[in-house]
């Protein structure tokens, strides 16, 4: 009886259940980040990985295609993580952008953002083709995922890709983000990542804000603002280019 009342409450307030649940997930992720990885692996990356893992486990147990949202108690996750809130929150991140920063980044800094988006997209697209995909929508979504785990799903949703392809694009972006966090301090010396200009170029090329911030923090904390400055523009440029010009190029190329 007590459980029935609780389930009835949860069903009526599914979005609030989702807020509570995601909040707890993120709290655990940041604890894991701090205590297990000493902050090397950013809490946000761990949280997204847990999200994908939960989607996998739920899919296995329910046989459904909507991950955790197929479990009735967590149906609100589909609203919270749905297209409307996703676009709303991503657009909001543009508010923190300072156009003056672009001037500071200079020609090379700005070029690095565009080169970074196009380079990662192309690499992802080529990998998708080499794995046998021929649908331009799928190729573009995976290419966009290789840019960041934001650009991937935004592109996939805009082009009408299926949920499993969007999951792949999130996973590709997540691999990139985690790899940037871990490998930056290891390769920093070899590639001359020890001054503000290099940090701005690096931020523009990599684009994953969480990866860049955590990677630079482990290399030289003084460089974080320079890398973050260009990285924040990357997602916007990616959301603009990937589901438009880059997708159309893929359509042309795939005939």
């Amino acid at each position, binding site marked *: 009886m007590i459980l029935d009342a609780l389930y009835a409450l949860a069903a009526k307030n599914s979005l609030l259940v989702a807020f509570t649940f995601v909040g707890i997930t*993120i709290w655990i992720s940041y604890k894991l980040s701090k205590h297990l990885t000493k902050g090397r692996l950013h809490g946000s990356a761990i949280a997204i990985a847990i999200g994908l893992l939960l989607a996998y486990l739920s899919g296995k147990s329910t046989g459904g295609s909507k991950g955790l949202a197929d479990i009735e108690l967590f149906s609100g996750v589909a609203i919270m993580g749905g297209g409307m809130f996703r676009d709303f929150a991503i657009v909001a991140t543009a508010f923190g952008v300072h156009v003056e920063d672009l001037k500071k980044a200079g020609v090379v800094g700005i070029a690095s953002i565009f080169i970074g988006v196009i380079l990662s997209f192309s690499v992802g697209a080529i990998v998708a083709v080499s794995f046998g995909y021929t649908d331009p929508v799928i190729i573009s979504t995976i290419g966009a995922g290789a840019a960041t785990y934001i650009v991937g799903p935004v592109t996939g949703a805009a082009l009408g890709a299926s949920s499993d392809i969007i999951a792949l694009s999130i996973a590709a972006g997540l691999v*990139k983000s985690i790899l940037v966090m871990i490998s930056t301090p290891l390769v920093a010396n070899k590639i001359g990542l020890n001054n503000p200009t290099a940090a701005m170029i690096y931020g523009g090329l990599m684009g994953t804000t969480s990866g860049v911030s955590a990677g630079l923090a482990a290399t030289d904390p003084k460089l974080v603002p320079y890398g973050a400055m260009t990285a924040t523009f990357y997602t916007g440029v990616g959301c603009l280019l990937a589901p438009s010009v880059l997708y159309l190029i893929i359509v042309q190329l795939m005939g």
Partner: protein
Amino acid sequence: MIIYGVSILAFCTLSGIYLGDLIGIMIGVKSNVGGVGIAMLLLITLAHFPKKIFHIDEISQKGVIFWSAMYIPIIVAMAAKQNAVAALAAGPVALTAGILAVAFSFAMIPVLMRFSKSEDHKK
């Protein structure tokens, strides 16, 4: 008021996505063409308007900043609702794409650095 910020954000998001849909119809593809990116440009433009013409005061800004801070939690929820079982069947493609994208991007840093130095030289 906080609702002003939320309202401006909603307006920009809707307008951007609408424009993206219209561009899609115009060029004849069944998709939204860069809508979220256009919405971001709109918001940046509004935020940088001369203060006399259009000014988002500090409290109204909180309505936008709240949603920008909610974006990682929303991405976590979005990840949790995907068809991850079907995606895992094609797992290596994500891993390969992610690894190669990082490798190529790292390799570009020294190249752009050289370009940056020759730019400085010209000055």
